[in-house]
């Protein structure tokens, strides 16, 4: 059909929106790469920052981010996958409990990240940590009841839970019903069907969800503001109860709390570039894994 002038107006206006958004993303990436690429070097990636944070490297922040993200994954992913398996494979259709769980997952995904920070402080640090201190050590200086790697990781685990659940459930649902029926018809129990047939077939999709959750968790700053992230630490965290430096928090600190913003500028751009490369490469891996999994299911 021939396009009329009004078609061109609509296509032009909406196309402009696409151009603007893609352009802004391009500018964002360009600014960060242009400002940060020159800073990246062996010393930048492996050294500690100097005390005024205008020179040196960001190794403690990279290390802290990796440690926290790994602990978060260990704590949160199994629970998320279990929830998704229950929702997709065990929960009776239209059961009230499944509906409640789904509503909870949806709401959890919408909770502002700063509220997770308050929750981490109020629940993990003060309640759980404080209770451990009360029971084990009695009154005195807090041992567990203070911000630390552990509490920050657990807070992030709760934050990323909905990402894991939603993507995993989607992945499980794409496994054809025929496979389940065939497995059950051969006399396999439901448990065997789930873990030997359904989960292996959905592995690609599940992995995608896990990677996306890791990427999300690695970039969040607001939830860890009060749960363990430190402005500057002369040592690396070696204990679950230590505080830690974090790439995202480091960016925030350099950009807003540095005594000399101009001197810290190259460090800031370099740190942003490192964080962005980290999250983007995780997302890229997720995209590749997902497209492979889809191709496999189609075959």
């Amino acid at each position: 059909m021939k396009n009329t002038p009004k078609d061109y107006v609509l296509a032009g206006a909406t196309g402009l929106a696409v151009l603007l958004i893609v352009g802004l993303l391009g500018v964002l990436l360009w600014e960060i790469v242009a400002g940060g690429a020159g800073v990246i070097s062996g010393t930048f990636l492996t050294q500690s920052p100097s005390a005024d944070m205008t020179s040196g490297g960001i190794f403690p922040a990279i290390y802290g981010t990796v440690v926290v993200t790994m602990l978060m994954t260990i704590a949160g992913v199994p629970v998320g996958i279990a929830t998704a398996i229950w929702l997709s494979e065990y929960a009776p259709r239209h059961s009230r409990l499944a509906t409640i769980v789904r509503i909870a997952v949806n709401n959890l995904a919408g909770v502002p990240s700063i509220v997770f920070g308050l929750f981490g402080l109020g629940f993990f640090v003060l309640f759980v940590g404080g209770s451990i201190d009360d029971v084990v050590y009695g009154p005195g200086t807090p041992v567990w009841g203070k911000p630390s790697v552990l509490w920050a990781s657990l807070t992030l685990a709760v934050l990323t839970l909905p990402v894991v659940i939603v993507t995993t459930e989607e992945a499980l649902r794409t496994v054809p019903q025929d496979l389940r029926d065939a497995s059950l018809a051969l006399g396999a129990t439901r448990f065997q069907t789930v873990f030997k047939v359904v989960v292996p077939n959905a592995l690609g999709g599940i992995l995608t969800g896990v990677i996306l959750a890791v990427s999300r968790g690695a970039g969040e700053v607001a939830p860890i503001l009060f749960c363990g992230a430190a402005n500057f630490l002369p040592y690396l965290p070696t204990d679950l109860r230590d505080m830690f430096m974090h790439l995202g928090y480091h960016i925030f600190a350099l950009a807003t709390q540095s005594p000399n913003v101009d001197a810290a500028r190259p460090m800031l751009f370099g740190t942003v570039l490192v964080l962005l490369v980290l999250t983007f490469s995780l997302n890229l891996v997720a995209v590749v894994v997902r497209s492979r999994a889809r191709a496999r299911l189609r075959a």
Partner: protein
Amino acid sequence: MSSVRVSLRSARLARVGMDDDAADPELGAQPVKRPPLGQGFKTPLSHRIAEKLIALMALSAVAAVALIFIFVAKEALPLAWEQLDGMRLLDLFLPRTWTGYHEAVYIWQPVGTPEKFNVVPLFLGSLKVTLLAMIFSVPLGVGCAIYLALYAPRRMREIVKPVIELLAAVPSVVLGFFALMVLATWLQDAFGWHFRLNAAVAAVGLSLTIVPVIFTISEDALAAVPHSLSEAAMALGARKYQVALRIIVPTAAPGIAAGVILGFGRAIGETMIVLMASGNAAIMKPFDFTTSVRTVTASIAAELGEVAQGDPHWRVLFLLGAMLFAITFALNFVGSVAIRRLEKRLTAT
């Protein structure tokens, strides 16, 4: 033939064993012969324990939502009976003539003496930044969705969609940094604003996080509109833009609305961008977008680290968190209702 029957039978028995005592509508009426214990059909104990464990873990999300609300509200609740220094509970929400002021004012000044906690300027700040961000991002997000769903060639759609989704993967602290270091300077140069960091800069930064939200949900909704509808309209001689604006967009409207609502929820709860780019001064000028604002989220983030536990200020910050939680909870609820309405509408045709 007989072997088939046997295997079918064993499969049935296996299912009976697996469901344990759950009533099977097909078999419930007739008595079922169970195999002797330990001979095949019963699910092993370890599996049953694992299944119970899975069901238990499935409650984690429910527990998390409940615990978040309980523990955030718990820190705020003592405000209701604890003595605030020279402040009444209502002063949190109503204007008051403080000593040294000539009229009743809304004022957030947690470090002044006496401490003045009025949450109205903060919520006004949040609302101002969020609404401005929505003005930018709703046309952009919905526009992108319409273009990709209706006009873009397939190849282009396959490239642009992941690119916009990539924007959603940029950590908010990076967007805050971008707004603070790059956008603020540009916008000030372009418009000659007096304050470098202001509501408008924060709103542009915020739009970068909400456009992907609005876009993804709207695009899904537009793509889900059945082809039969647009084909019928075309067959009746409708132009493409008519199909787009009178058939596809109205049909997908609940989905687009859900995207806008969820985007709003995301924007009002976003912390790092507004904390870094809004200037953070609690000024009560609802319609001036070139002055600094202080939002609810930024206040919590900036102030909680420096407050003693159990202080009235601490409690007020947790109260802000609880209110924020309630607001996003409500927005989420409305958004999911809109999505369900869309699903109903699409399956009805």
